[in-house]
């Protein structure tokens, strides 16, 4: 087991972690401010990826594709929030789950209706393709490195937005006491739409960025959505900081687990058994991590309320 492999896998884990953070941040923000559980968040991720693939196909520009992903996902978010989600804030969680499950069905079939069942491909732009040599002589794909950078930059921007701006003050106030800030003259329904659109745009951005290294297809948002749920349960629902810590933990656990567990088991089991047992456990590792967090910190690592 070489150091180079370990460093590569840690970078891969970080990359999937920061992308997961973009999803989880939106989910946890929407839950924290509006108290809404949004299953359709994965659909917004898919909308972003499809918009990016379509625009990249026509214009050939990756940056335009990213802008299109942000715009399309935010627009879909505003549309869905005003038509459906708004009526659900006061409803119980069961209704929220069902209505957003219905939205998934509509989004997935609608996308299939427009784009067909075959996956689309989004190419990595030439200025981001190819490997770079890191200090220590490690070759690593530039695009994945760029994803880590982009994810961290968005995380920082989100922190500035929430901790240092007027909108951020309103969002934090909305988490604490929505009646009070409505009484202070903040247009709460506009704030809700804005938060939802922000979460949607983050999901769409993640979809477009990840879409360039995976295929863009219907249902691509669902595995990510479930991992994002696991992430915010680990981090503590409603906490952006928790979402960040959770996302990195989940990304690292999943990537390192799938590489190193089979190797670890080979030390004391025959190769075939070690392979299959290692693969099963690696798939289950994030859920085991989540159960452990639940046993010892039921409110999540950074969560205040359960």
């Amino acid at each position, binding site marked *: 087991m070489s150091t180079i492999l370990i460093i590569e896998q840690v970078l891969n884990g970080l990359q999937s972690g920061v992308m997961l953070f973009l999803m989880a941040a939106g989910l946890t923000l929407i839950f924290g401010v509006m108290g809404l559980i949004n299953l359709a968040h994965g659909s917004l991720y898919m909308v972003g990826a499809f918009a990016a693939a379509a625009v990249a196909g026509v214009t050939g520009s990756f940056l335009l594709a990213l802008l299109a992903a942000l715009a399309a996902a935010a627009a879909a978010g505003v549309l869905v929030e005003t038509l459906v989600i708004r009526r659900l804030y006061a409803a119980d969680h069961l209704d929220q789950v069902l209505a957003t499950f219905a939205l998934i069905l509509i989004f997935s079939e609608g996308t299939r209706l427009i784009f067909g069942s075959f996956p689309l491909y989004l190419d990595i732009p030439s200025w981001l393709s190819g490997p770079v040599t890191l200090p220590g002589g490690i070759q690593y794909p530039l695009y994945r490195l760029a994803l880590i950078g982009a994810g961290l930059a968005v995380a920082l921007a989100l922190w500035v937005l929430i901790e240092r701006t007027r909108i951020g003050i309103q969002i934090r106030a909305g988490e604490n006491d929505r009646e009070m800030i409505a009484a202070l003259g903040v247009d709460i329904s506009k704030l809700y739409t804005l938060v939802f659109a922000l979460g949607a745009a983050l999901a769409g951005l993640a979809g477009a960025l990840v879409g360039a290294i995976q295929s863009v297809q219907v249902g691509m948002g669902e595995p990510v959505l479930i991992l994002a749920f696991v992430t915010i349960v680990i981090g503590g629902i409603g906490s952006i900081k928790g979402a960040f810590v959770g996302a990195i933990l989940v990304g690292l656990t999943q990537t390192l687990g799938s590489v190193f567990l089979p190797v670890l088991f080979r030390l004391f089991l025959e190769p075939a058994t070690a392979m299959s047992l290692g693969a099963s456990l690696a798939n289950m590792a994030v*859920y085991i991590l989540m159960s452990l967090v639940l046993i010892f910190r039921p409110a999540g690592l950074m969560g205040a309320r359960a």
Partner: protein
Amino acid sequence: MIRESYLNAALLAGLLAVPLYALVVDEPFTITLATRAAILALAAVGLNIALGWGGLVSFGHAAFFGIGGYSMGILAFHAQNFVPLDLGIMVFDGTKSMPIIWLVAVLASALAALLIGLLSLRTSGVYFIMITLAFAQMFYYFAISWARYGGEDGIPIYVRNDFPGLNTLVPIQFFGICFVALLLALWLNARLVASPFGLALNAARQVPVRVQTVGLDPTRLKLVAFVMSGAITGLAGALFADLNRFVSPSMFSWHLSGELIVLIILGGVGRLMGPVLGAVMFVALEHWLGGLTTHWHIALGAILLGVVLFARGGLIGLLCGPRGQT
């Protein structure tokens, strides 16, 4: 307003009459559809105990459905391939006998429900929804990577399992088995709701603090309900696997968990026959709309949105008025 008991009786009579009519006019496919509806109804009756009476929004009941299915798949796989199942302490030949398979399915899913429930009930609300979803997903990934039992491809079972005295390959006889299982589960559900346990559970859903003040433990009540719920859904899983003669990781998929909740909502939450009406509607929609267009999920989504936003209480709520206090 229609009396709920009349509606319930009509519904069961209808579910029985359709396959009998199909038998007379020789349309075995319709019998299979009715069997599918009965099995999905059974799974949803199980979920309704946790969701309707316990107030536990489990988004992971596919876990129990799949465990039931894999219990059947594994036992039948060893029997049909003549490979003994080595359990470490004893060696077992596998079996093709339905009663034994059902017993294993019920016990295995009850055990899983106990473990998942113990962990998940430490939390409530949104956490509970996400955690049950995540546990089901854990089983899904486990099944996918379990190469010995087919991994992603699942296990085909060549001949339907046996039930003493019946020929299960005849569609109407297998329907009969599933219908009787559904009736038994409904009877159990009705008895449960009227029992002291059911009353306490109902109270624990509505005002847990008061239940605690009178000396009952709401979490324990909910755990017992969750285990019973998982066991019934597990039985449905074993029957479903036998209907298709095939088990695959898709039985663990989260779409299935979602669809089971959808069945209950379409029919009516916390109504004895809500799951049955929902399952009949779902299978009918799937068959008719699915025949018209491959994009029928859009229509299903729209109907579901309509029910959630405008017809709370489902179809039974529309027909019979809001749910009573029991």
